[in-house]
């Protein structure tokens, strides 16, 4: 008996030893990859081990983890725009190795990847996703003096603007509110300045951005069509640096510095229309148009001071800040903040609107395989209008707690999971008559709680197949205080109401599972096929009365009367590289079906109604299309041409007599091209970079009257159907010139700091095409001097911009 037990123990011991021996035959190499100058973490860095042909990439926080066998390894760390590093490591235990990569001088030169590994366009598991770092973004010609994120992404296939100078962007026929816009994970509800001319993203403060047109990972939720995830710049832990830009329209600054070297860094940036040349340009504009003849729209008088549009004078500013505190090797605390405001002065008075947002994040490294991030996020958007007698307020607030984990299960497998809860409060409008003691009308406020759990797993098999599977489970609770209402479907009048007095009262609940999946099949190093499916639940909707987002549009949550929108999107694509990855071809086809699209019933022109929900009509929508893009991403000459064709239809019983109609986001054809040339080897022109954009797309749908009639002596137009016609097609060409002469740089004697000046010249809409953003039907009335007009009504298009030149002087230090 004793001998038997002993044998068991001996066997167990040997087994245990052998297990440990096996587990000790591989180790984990992990660490953080950063920019050697700024100290900013770099995500998406490729880490490749030649002998075992294993690789991985750094995550959003620059963290990487790779499992390797015991012994010597040669690792290549490479990232576009940086000089690759090769490290030799003899692994005998788990090792933490932080890497600092240096930026290459020719920032788009080919520096990436061992020649055994296919290009990312072909091999990545991502479909319908495009990532750009700031160096790539800066290659786009500046527009109106700004390198603009929204205008950059509108150059990508499947993404369009609504109209010139209008806020928001359209992705694959999806609505403007179906795009989740994140600034360092802070959701933004109106992400534009100056009615859409500029985005709220200061390019000087942007590190990288990723646009998800489809194949949206499970960690994102709350919107149906797309996610724009913008990461802002981290401050440097090594050295201080900055940039000042003075332009005709906007001026800006950015500055970063280590407060405590290697421990605490800060980054700040700001922009305004009222600094520097912006203010002087304002005066030049006023003086060049003293009689106000420039504005032909019969408005205020044509002053062009501070960029006058729609008879208003508009100004804005914004600020970004970021503080990073490296508590120790395993813990970091990060704060990112944004504050921005727009002002518009009209004959009726002052209006202002703006976003305020903040994000506090704790990053923790448990071990070489497991990291977590815990976040508290606040984001608010408010509007205020002062028309003398009447004042108007509205706004939305979002308060979020997030807890996410990333587990590096293996070199070819990553598991991410977490939870999120977002409290939202809605103020749909308060109208106050300042001349009356109790003259106020308040829209009932609303509250909601959007919570979710998610899990996503990414795995590569045999370097041929890759899958990315995810599941998001989301729940929306409409909370008190407030009241639920039953409406008469015919008259929209209230039938009955139930009151809820406490914020803990749940007035309505929706729960939706949201599966996500994408699959990649790598045919060979030059070809791949990818497919994806995602289901997204959207519990908020932006209700707009016009054809584009305006500052006074309101966000409405799902209620007992207004159901969430559920979107199912399928995409399949073929990807191929040519000439040793010098040319990249991407093709994709997509189909989206949406249940619960929302629109206001015909004729509502005012949000200030007690029964606003009753006017929300819901139905179904579908979008489908095909995109193709050819790109040369590297070299002195770079460029991209993309084309997409598609259709987007809605069907809502209460609108257009229940007949399907093209929604206002339907763009049939779209062609975008951008080219950039920097002759780096030319002595005469090496300091110049020339960029050219050309944009073309089909005019968006509009509703026009087909006939007219008289009521008494008043002639009236008659509309037969919604969105039957289209605006004239949109097209324009922009040219940008950047001059950054090395010969004009200088260094200070005290600390040898280098100052590099540069000039950006932008020629927007070089052939002065007056693209039309809306059509008015003008009632010609009786003729003057006894001569009657040829018709009772005539069509008149309105155009925002013609040829607009601008320049900007920059100084980097």
């Amino acid at each position, binding site marked *: 008996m004793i001998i038997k037990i002993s044998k068991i123990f001996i066997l167990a011991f040997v087994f245990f030893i052998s297990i440990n021996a096996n587990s000790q035959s591989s180790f984990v190499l992990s660490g953080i990859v950063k920019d050697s100058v700024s100290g900013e973490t770099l995500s998406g860095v490729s880490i490749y081990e030649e002998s075992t042909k294993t690789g991985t990439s750094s995550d959003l926080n620059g963290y990487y983890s790779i499992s390797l066998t015991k012994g010597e390894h040669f690792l290549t760390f490479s990232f576009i725009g940086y000089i690759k590093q090769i490290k030799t490591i003899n692994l005998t235990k788990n090792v933490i190795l932080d890497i600092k990569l240096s930026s290459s001088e020719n920032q788009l030169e080919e520096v990436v990847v061992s020649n055994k590994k296919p290009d990312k366009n072909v091999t990545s598991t991502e479909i319908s996703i495009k990532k750009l770092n700031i160096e790539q973004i800066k290659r786009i010609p500046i527009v109106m003096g700004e390198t603009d994120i929204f205008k950059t992404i509108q150059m990508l296939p499947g993404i369009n603007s609504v109209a010139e100078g209008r806020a928001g962007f359209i992705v694959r026929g999806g609505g403007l509110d179906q795009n989740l816009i994140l600034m360092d994970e802070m959701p933004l509800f109106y992400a534009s300045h100056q009615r859409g001319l500029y985005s709220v993203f200061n390019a000087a403060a942007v590190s990288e951005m990723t646009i998800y047109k489809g194949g949206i990972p499970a960690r994102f939720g709350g919107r149906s069509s797309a996610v724009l995830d913008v990461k802002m710049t981290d401050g440097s832990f090594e050295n201080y640096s900055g940039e000042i830009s003075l332009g*005709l329209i906007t001026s800006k600054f950015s500055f970063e510095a280590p407060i405590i070297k290697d421990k605490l860094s800060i980054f700040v940036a700001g922009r305004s229309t009222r600094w520097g040349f912006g203010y002087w*340009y304002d005066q*030049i504009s006023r003086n*060049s148009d003293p009689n106000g003849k420039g*504005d032909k729209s019969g408005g205020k008088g044509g002053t*062009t001071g501070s960029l006058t*549009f*729609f008879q208003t004078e508009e100004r804005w500013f914004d600020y970004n800040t970021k503080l990073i505190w490296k508590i120790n090797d395993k813990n970091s605390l990060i704060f990112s903040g944004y504050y921005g405001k727009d002002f518009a002065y009209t004959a009726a008075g002052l209006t202002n609107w703006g976003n305020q947002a903040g994000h506090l994040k704790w990053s923790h490294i448990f071990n070489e395989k497991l990291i977590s991030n815990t976040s508290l996020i606040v984001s608010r958007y408010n509007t205020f209008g002062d028309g003398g007698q009447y004042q108007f307020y509205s706004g939305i607030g979002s308060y979020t707690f997030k807890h996410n984990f990333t587990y590096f299960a293996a070199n070819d497998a990553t598991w991410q999971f977490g939870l999120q809860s977002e409290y939202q409060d809605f103020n749909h409008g308060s109208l106050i008559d300042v*001349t*009356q003691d*109790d*003259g106020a*009308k308040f829209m009932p406020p609303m509250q909601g709680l959007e919570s979710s759990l998610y899990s996503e797993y990414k795995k590569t098999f045999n370097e041929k197949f890759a899958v990315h599977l995810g599941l998001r489970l989301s729940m929306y609770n409409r909370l008190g205080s407030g009241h639920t209402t039953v409406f008469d479907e015919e*008259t929209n009048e209230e039938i009955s109401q139930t009151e809820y007095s406490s914020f803990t009262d749940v007035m309505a609940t929706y729960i939706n599972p949201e599966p996500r999946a994408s699959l990649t099949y790598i045919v060979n190093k030059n070809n791949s096929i990818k497919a994806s499916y995602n289901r997204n639940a959207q519990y908020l909707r932006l209700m707009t009365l*016009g*054809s584009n987002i305006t500052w006074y549009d309101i966000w409405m949550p799902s209620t007992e009367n207004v159901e969430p929108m559920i979107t199912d999107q399928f995409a399949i694509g073929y990807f191929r590289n040519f000439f040793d990855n010098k040319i990249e071809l991407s093709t994709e086809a997509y189909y989206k079906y949406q249940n619960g699209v929302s*629109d206001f019933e*015909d004729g509502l*022109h005012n949000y*200030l109604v007690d029964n606003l929900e009753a006017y929300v009509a819901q139905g179904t929508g579908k979008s489908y299309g095909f995109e193709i893009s050819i790109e040369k991403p590297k070299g002195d000459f770079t460029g991209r041409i993309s084309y997409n064709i598609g259709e987007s239809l809605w069907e809502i019983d209460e609108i257009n*007599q229940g007949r399907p109609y093209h929604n206002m986001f339907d763009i049939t054809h779209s062609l975008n091209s951008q080219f950039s040339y920097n002759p780096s080897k030319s002595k005469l022109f090496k300091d110049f970079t020339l960029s050219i954009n050309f944009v073309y797309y089909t005019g968006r749908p509009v*509703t*026009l*009257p*087909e*006939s*007219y*009639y*008289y*009521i*008494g*002596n*008043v002639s*009236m*137009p*008659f509309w037969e159907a919604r969105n039957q*016609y289209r605006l004239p097609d949109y097209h324009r060409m922009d040219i940008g010139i950047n001059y950054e002469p090395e010969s004009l740089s200088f260094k200070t004697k005290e600390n040898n700091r280098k100052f590099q000046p540069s*000039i950006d*010249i932008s020629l927007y809409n070089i052939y*002065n095409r007056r693209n039309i953003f*809306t*059509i*008015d*039907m003008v009632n*010609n009335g009786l*003729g003057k001097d006894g001569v*009657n007009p040829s018709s*009772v009504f005539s*069509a*008149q*298009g*309105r*155009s*925002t*911009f*013609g*040829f607009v*030149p*601008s*320049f900007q002087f920059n100084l980097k230090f």
Partner: protein
Amino acid sequence: MNKLLTAILILSVISSCTKGMQEELIPLNINVNNIGSITVIDSKIEMDSTAWVQISYSEDINAVFTLSPNYETNAIIEISDGISSEQLTYIGEGVYKGSSILGQVGNTYSITIEINGTIYNALSTMLPPATLRDITLTPYEVADKDGKSYTAYTENWIVNDPSATRNRYLFEWWTNGVHNERMDWAIDDNRVVNANEGLFLGNITRDVYEGETTTFRVAEIDKSTYDYFNMYEKIVRGIASAGDQTPYNPVSSYGPGTVGNFRAVAFSSYIVVP
């Protein structure tokens, strides 16, 4: 030095180009579908007055200018107050008038129109007239192009509006006997500030000069008439345009394929002569 001067010259030229940032209006030729004619019926019965109906047809939007439409001259129209009924008589320019049935508060009127075998029906109930609480006239001086001074008046009206009930009103302004049809204004008290049980509004046509006469009429209206005039005024004043998400025709009392309204209204009328 030459490079610097060239750069300054180029930048100066650039900085003077501000025209491109101005909004411009561009005439367009638009081809639209031919949808045929729409029947237009404007009809009413006012307090202590007989019924009035005008019937016409729409024209193509690009049709040659005309001051008057194509009228219907052969309609058969009958109005009833629930007790008696009468047939209206054609008097010209598409207008048909009653002779015996008068508008009375509290009555529900039904109207039936037959045109070439097609029947159109509508109903409306006459609500009690709204009442005026107060009017204030604020004088100010204006000068004409020759420099001559005049006294003008800003009119502000307060209409009694009980906050406990939902009410809708139709306002009309007549200046020196001329009805400013384009300025007819419908208000739903659910959508405006109600202060001290009153609706506060100014004359939205124009301020009046000394010696001129303003006639202010107000009536309480039902929902269908409010919906009609709410859209009517937005179209007429250009608030609803082709660029709107939600332009739509005023809801017709007579159903699909028609435009128009039937309203039984009791106006209160007030005259102001500054």
